[in-house]
């Protein structure tokens, strides 16, 4: 990495950006060189996405200069950045569900004939070639609606590649991916890097930083605070610079003897989604549900909680049969579900934090049929301080919080119901290391109090660090049930890819 | 005692943008000007049952001397008109009556019975005394049209009309497009249909326009009630032979005089009262407070150019 070319492809200096009274970025700096993968790190809300959106022409910075290939530029809109050769994969998917994959990739840049008409044949052919080269069996003319998150990510990547850009920016592209997809992404990134493309890579999974990147920029509170070569850093030193303190016990696994069966699932099936799912979770136990993206784990969780329908099967909570099909029934039986997509499923982003928190326990806050606003705010502050929520006031809309803090509000709103069984889907998706540590600590405390926890996670370190038992799903079936002591990455991955696990027979 | 000066008389038409009503209102305003009164026209832009009520209330608050109203609904306005009368405001209806307790006088274009019967007589002449016909009316709730249709059916019971058959009453809602489509449908649904009678100015012109572009032009009979200006082209090109109407301007004119006389105390509105109505001469109050403008005019190619309204 010493043969760094002298001039950066892209350089941002002294950029600042405020949203209303929130100073999202203050003196953000970045230099990106051709042929490198550059990690941009920082806590939730540090301003990484804001910086990306400035580079992409989405936001106009309040101050600062942007230099590309030695020329100072001003982007008024995203198309300017596209023309300057900057391709971006955003944190939130940006696809048109109603249009075909090909149209998604070429929107606004479709190949035209002499009369200005779109050449669909050519567009579809190009797209198909690209999808084949990415090794996925998708059809160019297929609608994006109904694609799995991983496939959606593939479309995003294809879109970025089709631009033949010399700068590729990826904002947490791996957050929703599991191992094989991540590997595929890394292979592509590596190929592009050798073709002298400059890549900016944002992630909260530090092991990926060491796998892929050559240099690092760390941000804190809207400012770039540290630059380094990746090889000069280690895990702890990065964490310390991001969080501003040391995190000692990362996976605070509590030592609890499992009690009675809290959650028992028997032969749960839903046509086309999952089949014959059976397992138990005891009180004081964390059971991880692992597998590839699209294996149907979230669907199982949603079915148990009554959000999705089931075709057959039974669920018992604390020994009582649970009537499936209505979340309200599940809540009353003592089940809580922290969903995987906090923005879509977890929060009403326009509503105040307090009202989000109280939504699950409205009936308990009622006095003579009326809601007490005071009790509501107290509840929110109480859970806020328990979970170390960073918020200006509980009256602020939940949407103004950073990702990790949003996750805490969702967690708080469910813990407020005092559940016996907690189902938590991707508890740390998109949240920073500091927040992760806090979430793990919270989970450990809950288990000590006797809660039964079913944790769905695509992050193997987290699974290995926190779970008492690991269930692995493949294409809608449970393929392995591995106790903590025997669990390792290889066995879980093998089961996730569909190989029958030698040691474990199907659970229960 | 003559008519007082400076009487405040308000016209409240069914709908302020209805062309027919505008002609009538203008006739009324002309009369009020002759009498040296203060006239005005207020009213809703939709023909709902209740939409006139807030205007009645306003006119009461404004202490008008008389209200001349063409009622959208025979009953909905009555309680409010009674309130007006209780405060000394004289109420005259024209064009479309209310229940008798709501008003003192009703200025009728011609008595409903003779309009209804007259339409059948005209129709019979035009189709040679036999054949199927349909009525294209305004809205299902239009009071005038419903009364006239009732009298048409009455007239049809006479033996000389035994061969004439009313096959359907269709509603064009006084909407041009709707009336047009209804006409078209009637022709499809009743292949033997020989005539359409449209006792509403919107309906007759829509029907005439449809027929004028259809192969049946010239043989099919369109008649009813319409204004000469609207129908002139169709009479000239042979689509329409004859139709009827009274002069709406004169109707408003007469109503204004009746109202002014009531408000001045020269008449009380009982049967047999007489009053001077400007250029229309002397008029007499008939049974149950009705004052009749006169028989409708039948327009045809020979006389249509003498009229302009």
């Amino acid at each position: 990495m010493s043969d760094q070319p002298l001039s950066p492809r892209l350089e941002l200096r002294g950029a600042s950006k405020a949203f209303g009274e929130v100073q999202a970025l203050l003196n953000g700096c970045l230099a990106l060189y051709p042929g490198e993968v550059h990690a941009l790190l920082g806590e939730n809300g540090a301003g990484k996405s804001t910086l990306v959106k400035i580079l992409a022409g989405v936001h106009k910075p309040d101050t600062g200069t942007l230099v590309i290939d030695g020329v100072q530029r001003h982007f008024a809109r995203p198309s300017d950045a596209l023309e300057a050769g900057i391709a971006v994969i955003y944190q939130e998917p940006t696809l048109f569900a109603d249009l075909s994959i090909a149209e998604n990739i070429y929107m606004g840049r479709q190949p035209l004939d002499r009369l200005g008409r779109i050449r669909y044949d050519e567009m579809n052919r190009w797209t198909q070639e690209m999808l084949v080269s990415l090794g996925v069996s998708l059809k160019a003319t297929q609608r994006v609606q109904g694609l799995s998150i991983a496939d959606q990510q593939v479309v995003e990547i294809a879109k970025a590649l089709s631009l033949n850009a010399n700068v590729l920016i990826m904002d947490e592209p791996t957050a929703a991916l599991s191992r094989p997809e991540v590997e595929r992404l890394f292979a592509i990134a590596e190929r592009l890097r050798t073709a002298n493309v400059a890549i900016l890579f944002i992630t909260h999974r530090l092991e990926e930083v060491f796998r892929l990147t050559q240099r690092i920029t760390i941000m804190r509170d809207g400012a770039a605070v540290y630059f380094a070569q990746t090889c000069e850093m280690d895990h702890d030193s990065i964490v310390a610079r991001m969080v501003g303190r040391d995190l000692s016990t990362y996976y605070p696994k509590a030592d609890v003897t499992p009690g009675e069966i809290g959650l028992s699932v028997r032969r749960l099936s839903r046509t086309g989604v999952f089949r014959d799912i059976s397992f138990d979770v005891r009180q004081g136990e964390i059971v991880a549900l692992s597998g590839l993206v699209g294996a149907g784990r979230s669907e199982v969780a949603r079915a148990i909680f009554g959000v999705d329908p089931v075709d057959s099967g039974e669920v018992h909570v604390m020994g009582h049969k649970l009537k499936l099909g209505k979340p309200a029934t599940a809540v009353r039986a003592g089940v809580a579900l922290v969903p995987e997509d906090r923005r879509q499923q977890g929060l009403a982003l326009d509503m105040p934090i307090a009202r989000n928190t109280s939504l699950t326990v409205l009936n308990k806050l009622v006095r003579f049929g009326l809601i007490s606003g005071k009790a509501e705010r107290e509840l929110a502050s109480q859970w806020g301080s328990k979970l170390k929520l960073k918020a200006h006031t509980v009256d602020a809309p939940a949407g103004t919080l950073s990702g990790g803090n949003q996750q805490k509000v969702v967690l708080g709103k469910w813990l407020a119901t005092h559940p016996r069984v907690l189902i938590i889907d991707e508890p740390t998706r998109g949240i920073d290391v500091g927040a992760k540590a806090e979430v793990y600590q919270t989970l450990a405390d809950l288990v000590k109090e006797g809660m039964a926890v079913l944790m769905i996670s695509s992050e193997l370190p987290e699974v290995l660090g926190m779970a008492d038992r690991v269930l692995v799903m493949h294409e809608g079936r449970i393929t392995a049930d591995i106790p903590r002591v025997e669990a390792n990455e290889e066995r879980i991955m093998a089961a996730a890819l569909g190989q029958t696990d030698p040691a474990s027979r199907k659970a229960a | 005692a003559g008519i007082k000066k400076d009487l405040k008389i308000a016209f409240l038409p069914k709908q302020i943008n209805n062309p027919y009503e505008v002609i009538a209102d203008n006739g009324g305003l002309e009369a009020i000007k002759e009498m040296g009164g203060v006239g005005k026209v207020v009213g809703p832009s939709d023909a709902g049952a209740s939409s006139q009520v807030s205007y009645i209330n306003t006119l009461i608050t404004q202490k008008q001397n008389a209200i001349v109203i063409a009622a959208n609904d025979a009953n909905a306005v009555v309680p409010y008109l009674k309130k007006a009368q209780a405060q000394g405001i004289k109420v005259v209806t024209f064009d479309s009556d209310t229940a008798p307790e709501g008003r003192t006088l009703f200025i009728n274009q011609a008595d409903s019975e003779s309009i209804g019967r007259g339409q059948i007589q005209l129709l019979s002449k035009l189709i040679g005394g036999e054949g199927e016909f349909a009525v294209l009316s305004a809205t299902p709730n239009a009071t005038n049209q419903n009364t006239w249709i009732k009298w048409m059916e009455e007239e049809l019971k006479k033996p000389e009309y035994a061969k004439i058959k009313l096959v359907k009453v269709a509603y064009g809602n006084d909407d041009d497009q709707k009336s047009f489509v209804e006409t078209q449908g009637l022709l499809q649904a009743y292949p033997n249909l020989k005539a359409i009678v449209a006792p509403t100015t919107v309906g007759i012109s829509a029907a005439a326009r449809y027929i004028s572009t259809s192969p049946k032009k010239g043989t099919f009979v369109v008649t009813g009630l319409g204004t000469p200006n609207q129908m002139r082209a169709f009479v000239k090109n042979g689509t329409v032979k004859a139709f009827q109407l009274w002069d709406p301007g004169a109707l408003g004119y007469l109503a204004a005089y009746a109202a002014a006389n009531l408000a001045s105390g020269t008449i009380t509105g009982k049967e047999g009262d007489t009053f001077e109505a400007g250029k229309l001469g002397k008029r007499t109050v008939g049974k149950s407070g009705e004052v009749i403008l006169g028989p409708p005019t039948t327009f045809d190619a020979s006389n249509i150019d003498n009229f302009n309204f």
Partner: protein
Amino acid sequence: MSTTFMSQHSPGIAVTTQPAPERQHWFLVLARNRESTLLVVLLLLIVGTGLAEPAFLSWHNARDVLLNVAITAILTAGMTVVMLMRHIDLSVSSTLGVTAYAVGSLFMAIPGLPVPLAIVAGVLIGLAAGCVNGALVTFGRVPSLVATLSTLYIFRGIDYAWVHGGQINATSLPDGFSHIATGNVLGLPILVIIAAVVLAGVGYYLKFFRGGREFYAIGSNPEAATLAGIRVHRRVFTGFLLSGALAGLAGVLWLARFGTVDASTGKGIELQVVAAAVVGSVAITGGVGNVWGATLGALLLGVINISLVVLRVSSFWQLAIQGGLIVLAIVSDTLLSRRMARWSMKKRELG
């Protein structure tokens, strides 16, 4: 009413990652292409009515139906463009009314006005109305339902205040103009040909031009559209301009067809137009639909209208049946596509 419809987690749409099987059940093929379903329903209706009343199948009647539907179909095409963007334009009826009267007055003022010029004038008035709507929605950031509900009132109010009790009669219009509705070319009324050309043009533009595809993109995901480099404001503005222009054109054609216009011309047809688009499978949630479907929707409603009269159904039944059919059309469309999704899910499970 924007982003959070049930569909986000509705069952069914989830799993279609496998390439579709080569041969498909006829039912699936039919159901997938919603327009063909609509076409079948339309044909059934026509044949059914024709059996009951043979006169219905005459060329003359077909001509009349086409003439009736042509104007609504033009409005529906404009509405389609706007609805594709997840917007709505309720003001079309008022725009149509103002335009019809204005062009009529123009003929009164300048009796020798050439017909093409009158059409241009009408389109210009429509454009002005579309401009107001577009500006409110883009620069003023007023939700389109609110903006166009307001302009529905405002344009109509201006119309009332200007026209008052006035009326334009067919007599005041030059024969050349009325010829648009009465004259034929190749056996088809000129008005219908104009409408067909306009509809084909809009449909073709939506399918084959970047600008057209951008309407879909915006309705499908407005934020993603911005990120894809689409100038969303400009495009939305264009959409409202187009809808206004088409409403203006429809106003001119209305005048030619009906001859009589007054202050309340076209009042209330905005809901008919939305209904036609919805029946024609244009999603009120944006991103889905096309002019062909919308036109079929307009045709279907038009044919229903006239069928009921021809079948001698009491006038009092007509409105109830129409309303019921609108509900039925939306419901069956949805049920059909769900059934289809479940079907393909089963297939995957088995294969």
